[in-house]
């Protein structure tokens, strides 16, 4: 197998992330849990700090200077996000608390207005709970029917029956990349099939948007949800992209300030997009932080990040298989081109909790558990996995540290 060239220098990259210079249990931290949340570069921390220190004020209200500055900074961030994902207009960028809220906004906003008993929503077996439970809630409330796209033996979507599954469906809602298997799904194929069947398509972009260039128009999706904290931005900020025409026709989600044009004793009229869906004072510092994260990612280059992660994925798979052979099983597609840098694994028959506990003693941070994807765990016939996941600041030294720590884990439990 040809070894891919990594365009990113790990040491220089790590220096931009203050947390990565700390120690855990007296050892330098090895952070391999970016699928849960990413670390934050200085540029993002500074942008948020600067907001609070110099222009902290409420947005879209005050006519004084710092309030205008805050409003401008927030709307610049929206424009940055718009361009980052190739949306046509800032009206299509709705800020939410997180991706979970974004998916709930679609299910509760579009779903309740457009779905009736018996309508079909198609999901897949690899969805995160955030793209399952909002639809279960509509099953209970409205009586919609859920259908599930199955997986093949390597953890890819099995699309052989896709047209049948979509027949008569109103919604297709799937992830662009599995947070457990790392599988990158053929989003355009899925959205094309949905459109042909007369269904809207919703894409959970939590794991894909931070790691590869995204153009929502090329994806052909009606809605795309993702979170800020997985892409070097702060927690507390998510994004819902929605096609303007659909957002215009939707009823509001939460009611309150900011989302209204007029309120009378006998009713209200809604504000323009995107504010129609942003009730209350928004997370201003977080929005500005997300804008800074987008600028920072643009500076690195999303294509460089993807190339870096392909190279690191090759290294990770070959290192772990090379050192541990049959003792380790990495879930998901074996080809680095078909997957992102998320590695769920079984090791030595040990429980993930026990693995991550010993890894922690070696300052290696991995996730252990069901990764909010219990239906997928059930399908895989396991209760949980350990999961290492990489991002722009990881390099081969992190993977070597993981392998060394796994070695020690195996030795500890066989004593």
């Amino acid at each position: 197998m040809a070894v891919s060239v990594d365009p990113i220098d790990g040491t220089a990259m790590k220096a931009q992330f203050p947390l990565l210079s700390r120690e855990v249990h007296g050892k330098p931290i090895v952070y391999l849990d970016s699928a849960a949340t990413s670390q934050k570069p200085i540029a993002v921390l500074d942008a948020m700090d600067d907001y609070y220190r110099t222009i902290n004020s409420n947005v879209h209200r005050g006519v004084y200077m710092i309030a205008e500055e805050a409003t401008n900074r927030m709307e610049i961030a929206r424009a940055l996000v718009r361009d980052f994902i190739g949306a046509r207009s800032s009206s299509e960028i709705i800020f939410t608390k997180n991706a979970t809220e974004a998916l709930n906004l679609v299910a509760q906003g579009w779903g309740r207005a457009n779905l009736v008993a018996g309508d079909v929503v198609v999901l897949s077996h690899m969805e995160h709970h955030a793209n399952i439970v909002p639809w279960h809630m509509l099953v209970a409330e409205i009586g919609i029917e859920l259908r599930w796209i199955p997986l093949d033996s390597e953890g890819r979507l099995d699309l052989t029956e896709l047209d049948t599954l979509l027949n008569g469906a109103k919604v297709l809602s799937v992830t662009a990349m599995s947070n457990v298997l790392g599988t990158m799904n053929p989003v355009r194929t899925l959205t094309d099939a949905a459109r042909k069947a007369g269904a809207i398509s919703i894409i959970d972009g939590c794991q894909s948007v931070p790691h590869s260039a995204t153009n929502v128009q090329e994806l052909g999706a009606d809605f795309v949800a993702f979170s800020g904290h997985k892409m070097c931005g702060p927690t507390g900020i998510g994004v819902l992209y929605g096609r303007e025409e659909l957002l215009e026709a939707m009823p509001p989600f939460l009611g309150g300030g900011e989302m209204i044009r007029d309120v009378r004793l006998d009713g209200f009229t809604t504000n323009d997009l995107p504010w129609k869906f942003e009730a209350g004072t928004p997370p201003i510092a977080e929005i500005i932080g997300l804008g800074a994260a987008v600028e920072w990612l643009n500076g690195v280059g999303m294509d460089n990040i993807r190339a870096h992660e392909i190279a690191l994925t090759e290294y990770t798979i070959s290192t772990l298989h090379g050192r541990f052979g049959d003792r380790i099983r990495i879930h998901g597609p074996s080809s680095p081109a078909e997957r992102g840098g998320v590695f769920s694994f079984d090791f030595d028959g040990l429980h993930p909790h026990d693995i991550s506990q010993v890894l922690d003693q070696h300052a290696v941070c991995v996730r252990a558990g069901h990764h909010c994807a219990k239906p997928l765990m059930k399908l895989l016939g396991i209760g949980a996995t350990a999961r290492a996941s990489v991002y722009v600041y990881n390099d081969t030294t992190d993977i070597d540290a993981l392998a060394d720590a796994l070695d020690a884990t195996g030795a500890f439990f066989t004593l």
Partner: protein
Amino acid sequence: MPGLEDLYREIILDHYRNPRNRGELETPPALRVEGFNPLCGDEIVLYLDFDANGGVADIRISGQGCSISQSSASMMSAAVKGKSVAEIDELTRAFKAMMSIHENTLEGAETAEPIDAPDVKLGDLEALRGVVKFPVRIKCATLAWNTLAQGIEEASA
């Protein structure tokens, strides 16, 4: 800093590798009760045969989980088998007191004793004392006990 040897005592690893009372009992007459740890996906299934007075005459365990939850379940089964409701209640309170006493202090506090713990010999279960130094693992250790309490409550309802 608490070390791994505080958590993974030899007796815990022994119960993990050689779990006691593993299996199932016929239902009915046995009661089947499930417990879940939503954090990690661990699940435990207890099969309980009760005697005429509500005590646990026999017990079997199935399900899957980490070494702490599995060994805790194994030790629990050995400790409660053949015991009366009152004895089990005392054991449960003593065990939970051992598990929760440090919950708010997180690290250290090794000398603190449970305030209202019954004066019961915990035997092997004492080995789990080190778990309190690893707060996220406390739920693993208490899963079997909470599931048992649920089963006893269901049986007496």
